[in-house]
């Protein structure tokens, strides 16, 4: 009797433990091997871009909190940066430092969540708890600063909403050595583990050309040995005042992406350390902005480095208090495009590993 095998179509998601939200992946599997993978996005689509056309600039800020909800600070900044560029505003020194501190802390927090969940995807249950313990410190600090734990709504056009509370800077300063110590622990627990290395080394390799062709940015691009970071290549805010390196990987596998993010956390801590040292004693936290913000007519594209990659905002203004068109270049969405190609020929077990290494947040993919 001839043995007959057939491929089967498997819906991974939208309700699945390791698709990080409502992401659906339709895979065709031959046994365990994937022959085709089709990502289906849009389950969390809220139409932020369209909604923004009916909202004033200040009102859009809380909406940006909910794009990549793990790093709301960077999203806040992306929007206000676009408006400020259009209005040609001068931002007070102290506000800039507060922004940088908040953004870098948020970047560390975002990477910590990635670290925990990616390891959880690989089957290790403990790292998640350790990551969340340390993230809690950051979240608490940002809570003290902005009054919320996740959706900060902290930045305003022209500056920030709150000044640093008393003793806050000291807390941030103390956090840096603590976190450095913990990062070492993370490496002890995970990075050297042979099972971990066997799972992620030489997995889902793409080279620099492919990464650029697909428009990837952020750690997934740097993992393929492309030294590109908006903070360095086109410094915004006051990033040109800090000394930090751009960690890059060599082969472009999942392990390299892992190491890039781990090193990035260290670099963020370096930036935080310098920002704390340079922090101006006093000063304004918000520039003189008219009560109703009406940027001059024109359009602008600004970009910044969020924890997932290049977050760009294309803003068209018709000199109204509401944008004519707001287009968000969401790194998670762009980075996701390579996924079908990476998964073909891999096995079921690689789906969470590869997807986790891309580090998507569904709020940002679907916007």
């Amino acid at each position, binding site marked *: 009797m001839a043995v007959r095998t057939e491929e*089967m179509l*498997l819906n991974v998601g939208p309700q*699945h*433990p*390791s698709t990080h939200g409502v992401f659906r992946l339709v895979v065709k*599997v031959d*046994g*365990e091997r994937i022959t085709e993978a089709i990502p289906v996005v849009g389950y969390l689509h809220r139409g932020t871009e369209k909604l923004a056309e009916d909202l004033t600039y200040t009102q859009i800020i809380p909406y940006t909190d909910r794009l990549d909800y793990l790093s709301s600070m960077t999203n806040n900044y992306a929007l206000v940066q676009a408006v400020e560029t259009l209005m040609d505003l001068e931002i007070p020194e102290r506000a800039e430092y507060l922004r940088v501190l908040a953004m870098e802390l948020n970047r560390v927090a975002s990477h910590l969540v990635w670290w925990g969940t990616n*390891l*959880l*995807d*690989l*089957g*290790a*249950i*403990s790292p998640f*708890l*350790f990551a969340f*313990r340390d993230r809690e410190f950051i979240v608490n600090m940002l809570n003290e600063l902005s009054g919320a734990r996740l959706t900060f709504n902290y930045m305003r056009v022209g500056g920030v909403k709150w000044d640093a509370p008393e003793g806050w800077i000291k807390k941030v300063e103390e956090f840096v050595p603590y976190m450095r110590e913990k990062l070492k622990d993370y490496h002890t*627990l*995970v990075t050297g*583990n042979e*099972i*971990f290395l*066997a*799972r992620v080394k030489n997995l889902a390799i793409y080279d620099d050309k492919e990464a650029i062709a697909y428009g990837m940015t952020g750690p997934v691009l740097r993992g393929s040995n492309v030294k590109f970071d908006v903070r360095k290549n086109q410094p915004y805010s006051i990033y040109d005042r800090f000394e930090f390196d751009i960690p890059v990987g060599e082969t472009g596998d999942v392990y390299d992406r892992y190491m890039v993010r781990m090193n990035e956390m260290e670099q963020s801590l370096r930036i935080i350390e310098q920002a704390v040292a340079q922090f101006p004693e006093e000063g304004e936290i918000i520039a003189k902005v008219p009560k109703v913000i009406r940027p001059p007519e024109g359009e602008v594209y600004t970009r910044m480095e969020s924890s997932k990659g290049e977050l760009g905002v294309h803003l068209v203004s018709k000199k109204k208090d509401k944008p004519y068109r707001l287009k968000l270049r969401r790194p998670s969405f762009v980075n996701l495009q390579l996924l079908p190609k990476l998964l073909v020929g891999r*096995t*079921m*077990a*690689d*789906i*969470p590993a590869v997807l986790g290494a891309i580090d998507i947040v569904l709020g940002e993919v679907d916007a």
Partner: protein
Amino acid sequence: MAELLSQPFSWLNLIIMVSAGVVVLGVVLVFVMYAIYFERKVIGWMQLRNGPNRVGPWGLFQTVADVLKLMIKEDIVPAKADRFLFLIAPIIAYTPAFAIIAVIPFSENVFFADVNVGILYYGALSSISITGILLGGWASNNKYAIMGGMRSVAQMVSYEVPLIMSFLGVVLLTGSLNMKDIVAAQQDGMWFIIPQFLGFVIFLIAGNAELNRTPFDLPEAENELVAGYFVEYSGFRFAFFMLSEYVYIFALSSVMTVMFLGGWDAPFGLTFIPGGVWFALKFLLLVFYLFWARATFPRVKTQQLMGFAWKVLIPLALFNVMITALFKTISQAG
């Protein structure tokens, strides 16, 4: 206990045997409940959490509540499932797990069957369980479940071989397949963990794989396969799969204690502590290791798992058997 088996059949004996079986079942159930509690507590502490602490003092009744909940839950059979197979799969998975306990001697006097091929019996029965898992996965008519079932079979086929081969060193040293004789041999000499360290390590890894526990929990890998073979099971049928998993922990740790850690043998001549206590201590140490590993390691992939079994463990086990045989021959000749 032993003389009971050789007596002629009588109703009294039957009642004694059945009630002994029920007592063991009770002991095993209590063990399973508290193993789950212990696991959750230990992993909780390792992850800086408190573990269960709501039901009863220190959460001691948490698993009791969980089991009760599973018992009174609706027993759902999917419409498109193969009904008969779906219903018997948990039973097939559980029965051999429980039957294994018969051959394990817990101390000099507490054992149920003094079987001369005890180890063989263990190896043979433990591979039947997998049929239940495969059937459960197949009968569920769920794509995740069938994948889990297939993985489970692939894993078992690979790991049964090094597991049995790692016994062989011990069997060579004792010249017996009887578990009581093996303990007796260790009481005279040293524990087999020292001369058979390689065998011990192979057994630990292969046994971990056979238990389907992290880092070898591929059949139920929740991050890829949601829950693997029991994804469609609910209520007490799910409880049975869970139960057989933990009974296997019980059985495997007991067998390891007997084979490598000297069973009820007291170390350093501390004989005033009864053998049962020593057995329990060694046994708990092994159970603790399983939980500890679960809190530490990520999961391996199927290919890696099978590659590791066939390319590393089996050659190592063969090597171990060879070396043991060689030493035995030399020492007997000399």
